[in-house]
């Protein structure tokens, strides 16, 4: 360590030296041993609500109940406007869990991965695995996979169009059937949602998803009932209401314009955005999404003029509007990306 480094270390240690953390072990023990407060609230509200919201996995009935692709699709699958495939890779949508003021929600990230089978690549990525079997994290450090490390899957679609089913055959280091003692049921529900949303988006079909464990049917996985094929849970209770598609995390932007695209469901279709430099907004504005009064996320796009801004690190924040000003509900939902302007 240089003299310079030593002095910096001294200054940082000195800055927090007077901090005397209070005693919180009992409070931690208490929260660790009981389900989250949100969960408790839902449990009180009745098992029906708990099943609908906490587990948030709806069961698809017989095949004749299947909905064709159409306006009812909660979120459009990637279209031709998505980034082009680079040579030697495949771009896939992957749903990850992130925290919001209202609890965990899913966020979508587009990943370019080596390989050719988008379905297999996307589901493995949602489980936290790269094509070579090593660990793979979301690009955005705010997101995570809710699955235990070491879980893998074989995923297939047996059919044409909507007439068919998706099958995800899971395997892992331990048993994946029971919910581990320490796993929050809400997080377990989101783990299953991750697979259903990711598989349907990667296959571009709203087909029911059957989950197997080690090649066999199972009544549950991580304690979540999966005996019947699954549909996605209620969109606005499972997905974060705004998800940025581009720029991607840690992108480098050249030129005078930052192109922003994403999906959102926000009051009056208004998606606010801010470009922050050192935590302070240097550009602000809003984009208008294609709609908002339906149970799905709508595309939005905007171009931010970044000419005249010094090069360096910035954070783009997109947020849903909150007409109550934080007085009702959990306030605005946000998605963020760190970018470098050159």
């Amino acid at each position, binding site marked *: 360590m240089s003299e*310079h480094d030593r002095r*910096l270390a001294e200054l*940082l*240690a000195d800055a927090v030296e*007077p901090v005397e953390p209070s005693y919180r072990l009992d409070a*931690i023990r208490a929260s660790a041993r009981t389900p989250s407060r949100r969960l408790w609230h839902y449990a009180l509200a009745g098992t029906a609500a708990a099943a609908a919201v906490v587990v948030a996995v709806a069961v698809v009935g017989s095949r004749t109940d299947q909905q064709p692709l159409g306006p009812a699709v909660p979120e459009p699958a990637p279209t031709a406007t998505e980034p082009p495939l680079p040579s030697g890779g495949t771009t896939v949508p992957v749903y990850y869990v992130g925290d919001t003021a209202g609890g965990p929600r899913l966020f979508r990230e587009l990943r370019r991965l080596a390989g050719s089978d988008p379905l297999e690549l996307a589901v493995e990525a949602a489980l936290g695995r790269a094509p070579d079997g090593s660990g793979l994290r979301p690009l955005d450090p705010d997101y995570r996979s809710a699955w235990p490390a070491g879980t893998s899957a074989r995923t297939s679609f047996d059919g044409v169009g909507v007439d068919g089913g998706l099958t995800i055959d899971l395997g892992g280091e331990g048993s994946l059937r029971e919910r581990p003692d320490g796993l929050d049921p809400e997080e377990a529900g989101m783990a299953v949602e991750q697979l259903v949303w990711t598989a349907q988006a990667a296959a571009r079909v709203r087909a029911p998803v059957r989950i197997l464990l080690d090649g066999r049917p199972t009544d549950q996985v991580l304690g979540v009932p999966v005996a019947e094929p699954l549909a996605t849970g209620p969109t606005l209770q499972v997905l974060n209401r705004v998800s940025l598609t581009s720029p991607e995390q840690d992108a480098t932007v050249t030129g005078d314009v930052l192109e922003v695209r994403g999906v959102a469901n926000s009051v009056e279709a208004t998606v606010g955005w801010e470009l922050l430099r050192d*935590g302070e907004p240097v550009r602000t504005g809003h984009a208008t999404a294609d709609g908002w009064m339906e149970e799905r996320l709508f595309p939005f796009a905007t171009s931010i003029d970044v000419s005249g801004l010094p090069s360096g690190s910035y*954070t783009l924040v997109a947020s849903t509007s909150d007409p109550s000003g934080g007085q009702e509900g959990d306030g605005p939902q946000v998605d963020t990306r760190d970018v470098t302007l050159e």
Partner: protein
Amino acid sequence: MSRTERWGADEALEELYAAHWARLVRLAVLLLHDTGAAEEVVQDSFVAMHRRWRWLRDPDKALPYLRQAVVNRARSRLRRRAVEERHVRAEAARAVLPGVDAEDGATATARRDAVLGALGRLPGRQREVLALRYYFDLSEAEIAETLGISRGAVKSHASRGAATLREHLASYWEDPS
């Protein structure tokens, strides 16, 4: 290791709390400049660690997990605060650092405020890298792992951040007290 491998989630929580609670809270104060918020973030991280113990199983994995959880939660918290402050136009209540005694005097208080203030004005990544490197003594590889970025990125954030701090804190640089 033979003893620790048999830890249950509750024992692990107790041991890790005893060993790391205070230092993790101070790390979070460097990131958040707010003692109350720092305690909440670290508390939530311990609860999450307890929930995941079955998968972590060993303290060598639990501490990196805790560090990562604290940094990620602090980052989310800052972003939410930045957004809420402007949406709600309400200044987030920031706990003042505990007072210093008379001998310590105004100089030390001013210096501490200056250091936390200067850290707070850095881009998030630089602040995280500096706190992990200079306060937590982590290696470049450990920081890269904690933040999920490359070692090259760690190096560049560290050198840019350190240079900016040195500039902003020039008046405190030579004072060895």
